[in-house]
């Protein structure tokens, strides 16, 4: 949350008659599962990072920052989130534009915004801002939304997605589309429309192919036939399949994965950490992690059902389902059923921005649940 939006939110406090922050909210099921996932993640990372305690400590600091974000977000009344949504969306869109302009000037890939002390990727924040904006737009309209309303919603999603895709960061752009699209889906657009738009996107695939950059095309081609480029992009998939496959039921044991420790496996501590887990803890470990993820998604969906207004309902549902999309895209990529897009394994891969954003999202879920009015108004 930027400082300016908090000051802005202070004004209507009187009008709405309730403070931004109310009673202390801690969603225990969410919190405990998050602790379990990140803890498991740190254990795997220690092995993946070549038993480098320093890197694990740095990731631990990021996780601590994430939990702080969780607690802060959990205390904010959801109605303020609703009021802030358009402002947050516009601010992040502005940042994306700034990054695009700066990238135009420096003639290169530009994803990071340097704020002096901290560098962060505005595209990460858009993963939250886009579904919030969609939920805000739909919150006091009759659902299911009409066709003109759907057009507005498509614009809300498409504009930032195009900006991010041009950075170029196709993976994040697709995730933003997924986050916004899921909110629309939950709002109740007709099954027929879903089928039609699905057909349309299939028809648009060739257009997308033409507009892709060479390295993005290479990734898709490598997905279709990894062996075509065994020294480069295909190498990752070949090695990660070997790592997963050789894990068997219970794995080779912690710190004993030969694929990971003999450095066959690339990007072990980031995008491909799932393969390290699969090699060292086997099918058992992987399924355990998937169950933990499912608990988080299930809790989120439960919160969505229990939510009392359209905004929180759509937001909670979309955030939970998007989280699952991250998991599925990463695990699918590493196990070779999806193309290699740079999506980290949520809460486990080394990396800061994604960890903090995700924890913040879970904080919002906790807030939605914790600030319900228990007596019917």
């Amino acid at each position, binding site marked *: 949350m930027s400082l300016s939006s908090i000051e802005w939110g202070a004004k209507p406090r009187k009008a709405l008659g309730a403070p931004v922050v109310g009673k202390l909210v801690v969603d225990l099921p969410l919190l405990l599962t998050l602790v379990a996932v990140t803890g498991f993640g740190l254990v795997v990372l220690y092995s993946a990072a070549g038993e480098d305690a320093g890197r694990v400590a740095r990731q631990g600091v990021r996780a601590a920052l994430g939990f702080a974000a969780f607690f802060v977000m959990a205390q904010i009344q959801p109605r303020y989130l609703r009021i802030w949504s358009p402002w947050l969306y516009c601010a992040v869109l502005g940042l994306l534009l700034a990054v695009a302009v700066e990238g135009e000037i420096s003639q290169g890939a530009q994803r990071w915004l340097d704020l002096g002390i901290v560098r962060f990727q505005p595209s990460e924040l858009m993963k939250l801002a886009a579904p919030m904006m969609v939920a805000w*737009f739909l919150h*006091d*309209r*009759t*659902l*299911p939304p009409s066709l003109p309303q759907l057009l507005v919603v498509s614009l809300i999603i498409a504009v930032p997605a195009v900006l991010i895709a041009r950075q170029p960061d196709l993976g994040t752009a697709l995730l933003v589309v997924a986050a916004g699209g*899921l909110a629309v*889906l*939950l*709002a*109740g657009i007709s099954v027929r429309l879903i089928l039609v738009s699905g057909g349309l996107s299939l028809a648009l695939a060739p257009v997308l192919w033409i507009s892709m950059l060479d390295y993005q095309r290479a990734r898709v081609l490598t997905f279709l036939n990894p062996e075509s480029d*065994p*020294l*480069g992009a295909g*190498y990752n998939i070949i090695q990660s*399949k*070997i*790592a*997963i*496959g*050789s*894990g*068997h*039921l219970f794995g080779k044991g912690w710190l004993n994965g*030969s*694929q990971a420790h*003999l*450095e*066959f496996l690339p990007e072990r501590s980031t995008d491909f950490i799932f393969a390290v887990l*699969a090699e060292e803890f*086997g*099918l058992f470990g*992987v*399924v355990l992690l*998937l169950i933990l993820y*499912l608990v988080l*998604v*299930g809790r989120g*969906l439960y919160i*969505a*059902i229990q939510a009392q207004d*359209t905004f929180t*309902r759509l937001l909670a*549902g979309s955030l939970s*389902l998007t989280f*699952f999309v991250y998991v*599925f895209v990463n*695990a*699918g990529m590493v*196990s*070779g*059923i999806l193309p290699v897009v740079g999506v980290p394994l949520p809460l486990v891969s080394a990396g800061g921005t994604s960890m903090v954003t995700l924890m913040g999202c879970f904080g919002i879920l906790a807030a939605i649940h914790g600030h319900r009015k228990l007596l019917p108004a």
Partner: protein
Amino acid sequence: MPKRSPTLKDHWREQRLFFSRIIASATVVLLLTAVLVGRLVQLQIFDYQRFSELSQDNRLRIEPLPPTRGLIFDRNGLVIAENLPTWQLVAVPEQIADLEGLLQGLTALGLVDAAEHQTLADLIRSHRGFERVKLRNLTEAEAARFAVRRHRFPGIDIQEGLIRYYPFGPASAHAVGYVGSISSADLERIDRRNYAATSHIGKTGIERAYEDVLHGQVGYRQQVVNARGRVLLDPAEEGGEVASAGLETRWPVPGRNVVLSLDMRLQLATYEALAGSRGAAVAIDPRNGDVLALVSAPAFDPNRLAAGLSRSDFAALQADNDNPLFNRALAGRYPPGSTIKPFLGLAALHHEKKTPHDHTYCPGFFRLPGNTHRYRDWRPQGHGNIDLYGAIVQSCDVYFYQLAVDLGIERMAAALTSFGFGPATGIDINGEIGGVIPSPEWKRAQPQFKRPEDKVWFPGETVIAGIGQGYMLVTPLQLAHATATFAARGARFRPRLMIGTEDTFEGRLAYIEPEALPPVEMDEADWQVVHDAMVGVTRDQRGSARAPLAGTEYVVAGKTGTAQVFTVAQEEKYNEEEIEERLRDHGLFIAYAPAESPRIAVAVVVENGGGGSRAAAPVARKILDVYFATQAGIVEDYVALQY
């Protein structure tokens, strides 16, 4: 806030719709999870045997195959850079248990420098486990010493390899450059995949600038190896069995050969003429910009760098007072001194500030109106009444002080810039920097002048710019380029060292056309006046370079120059003997020949050589003598005589 919808919200219906969507989504989530688990079961249970074999008992390994680096030839087909077989010390990271211990053991054997442990350890760690990392080249004796103790160094091996060899050693060093071990900085600018099997990369000169042409494309072969890294099945040795074994081989594509504009005979003559001094010489063909010789002295032996200098040896080379690694021809900036006079004379004729017949009286010094400061002429007694011809032949300073004042600094700067002074010429190798052509605008932009009153352009600064002193700086390459432009009567070509590339297999030369630059347009009569004066410099009784160029069969047009390294105070006498060698003037000389239809233009700078006539002109004479001797067929086998 969005517009309220006109219809009433049906909360019960909406909630039911939402609930059904959540249930549908949850079902999809579970289905996708099932797909994922199914995939994992397939990989980890059903295909376990295969992947386990790949991972533990046998490994399918991809062995990258290095491409052969392209050769470098001079314009006559002489080899300047080639690849020779050698022994190499290599490491295989995955087989190394105790890296630190191994390195210490190698140091004890005298094979690795103790100071390099960290660099080598970083290098080894930055590679994939199965990649063979080249540590250094070994001599025969070192290879033998290691071979008998090989069992004590698991993960370290020796292999045959190729080493870059430069037959002409230091003579070609600054033009051709050298290759060295790939550093982490190099890794940033290359496609790592293409260098998977390559240990060396071009660091400077042609080797660096045409790295992508010379390197070629990496190949690979798949091998089956056991856990200890022993090759069990190698398609290269199986011949026809390749297809049946399912192992693939893609052969590397060798790099292309590069053909240079250099004439090694001339290059050697230039290198020898500069031997023992600090300086640079560049010879350019005015008809196309081909660099025929490019020497910076002192030079270094590129073979030592290609073989791998120890850290201390490299430090010693860098600390050398004469700075042999510094490319003076491309990056040495010197005041041009009087060599700038022909260009300024031409500009004055062009702007009609002088006619060939205008005379200036030279009493041995020059004064600006209303100022007592005396700008001296190099000849204390003066040259008397003198015209442009005489002023260039005898290098009269007072004439050019007056000319500079008449012409004005703006016109001077514009004219010199049109000849290619100022910004870098854009020669096709790295490391070139531009010179300085000062102007009021330039001075305002300089950060070293902080106070506003220091940013003002003074009239006296125009005066000394007339004889190429003050802020004005040029590189030897720029001087040669401008001289070539003058020789070609204004036709400009970008200086270049590469004239074509050659296919390794077929040997067909792909010639690259020279790149014409915007020409300098002047009246033919004006060119002729200054040209005649430059011929006078070597032929006239009073010519400043008559002695060093006496008796040549070809006619040379030239100009001497002397660049002050330090300033003489107003009333002080200049006594060369008392000045330390490092404070002595730089000698410069520019020339082109044959005067009637120039085929070669030369610029020579000799640091602290005294005057241009004494130090630089004799060097140019030697270059020109060899050029015309080889052209005439007298010394066709000059190189054979030397080597």
